[in-house]
């Protein structure tokens, strides 16, 4: 059923992917110029690979379910899910998964095509199989983390009417804190350390860092561990928010 629904909205799905790619593409253009002039930082190949990976990872890890959850809590539509015999979150998970598959239909083949036709334009690091072995679990963890975090922001609507505004704050903050505007490796050290204490780095930057070999094997394992811990914490938080929220929730207008 979800498949059919998403297929109806083909143009929108393509436009969403394009829009999601626009910010990393602009960052790529900027940082590529920097890498040409500054030999000490990332090489041009690494910069190119990093931002193309960011686009790819962002398409896979993006979550927007909080937007709908917040609206449905605010206008009372959430009731129609509450009376169904399975948890509401399943809806979001299915919707999210199906939409991802559609969104990947164009970028994934393109990505693979470029990877094998112009291997020298990319950083040689991404052809190392062991990096992929660590990258794939890290990408899956990032996906779960992003989804659960977004769910928490949606649940804020139980308490705050401005939940949508707060979500948009999160989206802007995420641009910096997940490494879309600036690669983590090029940030000033203090900022880098501070942002590493937040979950956003583990959603976009960490999988890319692992695949690009910016983290050693041991560091990669450590990063995977951090991702798992964050997921655990945020699922606990989401569960608490959901329980507490439902207890105090009064459906508007009914």
């Amino acid at each position, binding site marked *: 059923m979800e498949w059919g629904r998403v297929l109806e909205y083909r143009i929108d799905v393509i436009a969403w992917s394009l829009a999601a790619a626009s910010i990393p593409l*602009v960052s790529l253009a900027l940082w590529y110029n920097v890498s040409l002039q500054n030999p000490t930082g990332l090489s041009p190949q690494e910069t190119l690979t990093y931002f193309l990976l960011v686009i790819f990872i962002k398409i896979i890890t993006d979550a927007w379910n909080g937007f709908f959850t917040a609206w449905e809590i605010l206008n009372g539509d959430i009731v129609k899910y509450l009376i169904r015999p399975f948890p509401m979150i399943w809806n979001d998970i299915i919707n999210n998964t199906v939409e991802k598959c559609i969104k990947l239909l164009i970028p994934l083949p393109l990505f693979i095509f470029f990877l094998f036709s112009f291997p020298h334009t990319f950083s040689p690091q991404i052809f190392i199989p062991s990096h992929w072995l660590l990258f794939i679990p890290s990408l899956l963890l990032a996906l779960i983390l992003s989804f659960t975090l977004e769910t928490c922001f949606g649940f804020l609507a139980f308490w705050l009417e401005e939940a949508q505004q707060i979500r948009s704050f999160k989206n802007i903050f995420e641009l910096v804190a997940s490494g879309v505007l600036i690669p983590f490796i090029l940030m000033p050290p203090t900022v880098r350390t501070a942002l590493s204490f937040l979950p956003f780095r583990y959603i976009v930057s960490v999988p890319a860092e692992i695949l690009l070999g910016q983290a050693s094997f041991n560091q990669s394992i450590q990063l995977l561990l951090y991702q798992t811990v964050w997921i655990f914490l945020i699922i606990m938080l989401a569960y608490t928010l959901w329980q507490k929220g439902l207890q105090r929730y009064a459906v508007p207008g009914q």
Partner: protein
Amino acid sequence: MPFLANSRYLWRVWRANTRASLIREMEFRSNFFLGILRQGLWLAAFIFMIETIFSHTQSIAGWQKPEALIILALSRIVEGIMDTFFTHNIADLPSIVQKGSFDFYLTKPSPVLFYTSFKQFYLHSTIGQIGGGLATFLYALSQLNYQPNLNAWLIMILLVMTGLIIFYSLLILLASLVFYIERLEALWSFLQLITEPLTVPFDVFPTTPRLALTYALPLAFIVFVPAQAITGRLQLWQLPTAIALAAIFLILANLAWRAGLRRYSSASS
């Protein structure tokens, strides 16, 4: 003078709408302040990016740090003007057509395109984006090692106005598609696609996309060319080109809108 009487009438309609919007916006005060704060955060994120870039290099594609800040600031001001007056109104058109409330627009005693474009006035964009942009602009000017002369200022202001016309026309052209394909939720995404590259010097793009964004889809003329004027990079031929492009796109947008409107069939009847 029918034209004068007409524009006086439109001015009165716009003033009444704006008054209503302001009252509405003040009713949701926390949203209003959070909106301003959001624009502040956005600006801070991009200033931080520029700061970081210039901690790694002296100049990027020939642009110094204060000049890059001028582009960012100008993009904030221009987008702020657009968001205050018409971006949201036009971008809402698809959902209005889909819900069928576009019928009400058609029955109003003011021109449809005028009402669609200028229905609501967004004060938080004025304060957040234009205010933040102006502050950044003044700061960047004080950091420049040269001062632009009066000519540069006048040309920049003229170019900003042609840029606004070009952007407005592009939006109307895109929005007119709704009359052909009925559903156009994607308009918001296209909007992001158009506004995202405005914040950077176009010289950083590779040749093909740069030329495409200058002539085919003339985004360069919205922020980048005015910024070239104030930083003394403008070539003489760019000024008439900007005016010609603005005229061409405005005419195209009006033609597309009219053709689209003739095809319109209400959603509910």
